[in-house]
């Protein structure tokens, strides 16, 4: 079973466990706030994150997440924003959705720099659009796998701190394994990848790239679709489709890319 190369598991097989970690190791571990109303999903995501060497706080709702961060109406003492390196949230939750939670986080001066990843069991293009436009780093289609978690570790703030990079407003870190061709000439402190490039890479991870030393992985993960099913997979049951957008808007371009009628310049 010890086939994957995640560090924590190798350490365990060498007789280490988490209590053997020194205080400084613990301090270096990224802390993830996971939000999901489903108990089964919380247990799974917690395990995935712990195996990937993260500390995890798992809560069952958007309002509890805000409470934890100190952003609720109670105006309880504000948790040090440095303590949370990434927030991963389910999209569909009763009460506050993951999207609404993310908006509140992005509106907060204390927490807007914390990267947010959205998970959803539904692969709905308009939903993905909306989340990315609102500032989500990534959108994972459930069920979440270990490879998804390994990838999102790249977005975590603590990664930046440990490598001593500038944590200014553009502190989003691009994935280590492969850059998208559209932003390959940009420095790490330049503006984050545009929405168009994020979505382009999602659907065409290897098209129109200069040949890299190794094939880049897509920025976003999708559970593999059944071969007979085209994208998008199913109509959204919730009224989340964006209205028909002007030709040069990100949403419109994604639709054109998806139908493979137009190659973006």
């Amino acid at each position, binding site marked *: 079973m010890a086939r994957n190369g995640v560090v924590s598991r190798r350490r*365990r097989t060498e007789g280490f466990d988490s209590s053997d970690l020194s205080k400084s190791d613990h301090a270096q571990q990224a802390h993830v706030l996971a939000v999901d109303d489903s108990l089964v999903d919380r247990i*799974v995501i917690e395990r995935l994150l712990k195996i990937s060497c993260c500390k995890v706080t798992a809560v069952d709702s958007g309002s509890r997440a805000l409470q934890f961060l100190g952003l609720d109406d109670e105006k309880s003492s504000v948790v040090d924003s440095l303590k949370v390196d990434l927030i991963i949230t389910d999209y*569909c939750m009763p009460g506050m959705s993951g999207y609404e939670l993310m908006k509140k986080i992005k509106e907060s001066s204390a927490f807007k720099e914390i990267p947010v990843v959205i998970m959803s069991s539904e692969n709905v293009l308009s939903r993905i659009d909306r989340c990315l436009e609102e500032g989500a780093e990534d959108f994972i289609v459930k*069920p*979440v796998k*270990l490879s998804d978690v390994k990838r999102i570790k790249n977005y975590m703030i603590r990664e930046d701190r440990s490598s001593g990079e500038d944590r200014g407003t553009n502190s989003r870190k691009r994935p280590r394994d492969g850059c998208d061709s559209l932003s390959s000439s940009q420095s790490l402190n330049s503006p984050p990848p545009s929405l168009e490039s994020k979505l382009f890479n999602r659907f065409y991870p290897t098209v129109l790239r200069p040949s890299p030393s190794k094939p880049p992985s897509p920025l976003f993960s999708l559970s593999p679709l059944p071969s007979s099913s085209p994208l998008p997979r199913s109509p959204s*049951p919730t009224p989340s489709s964006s209205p028909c957008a002007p030709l040069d808007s990100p949403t419109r371009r994604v639709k054109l890319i998806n139908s493979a009628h137009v190659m973006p310049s």
Partner: protein
Amino acid sequence: MDVVQLLRQYIDCKTTLFREGILDDQFTQLQKLADDSSPSFVVEVVSLFFDDSEKLLKNLTQALEQPVVDFKQVADHAHQFKGSSSSIGAQRVKNVCIAFRTYCIEENLDGCLKCLQQVKHEYALVKNKLENLLRLEQQIVAAGGSIPPVE
């Protein structure tokens, strides 16, 4: 029963589960998450799934028995069931839940009732087989054997 026989039964059970599409790759993903520090991770998650599913099935049944059915409520329960079954790898349960939601959107009561029967059937099947599989695992370990590594 000796370890070899138990192992043979275990392998047969597992092969059937995947060949018949009762479980999918997500279950394999979960098995990979168990290790020395969390050896019974799969048992824990599966138990939680069973508890959760019993509640959801009860809610679904009650919601569909109402004189005026709230299809949005039924759809929410079906959505939750779809989510948890997907996270466990219970593929056939998940697929019925997908159809279930479509009938809810169409407010097709007959369709919903048929799906309810079907999802109860598929759930009972996966529950039975998973309990069997996990029991065999425990018996193999208790008899001094070890479970074949996950591919």
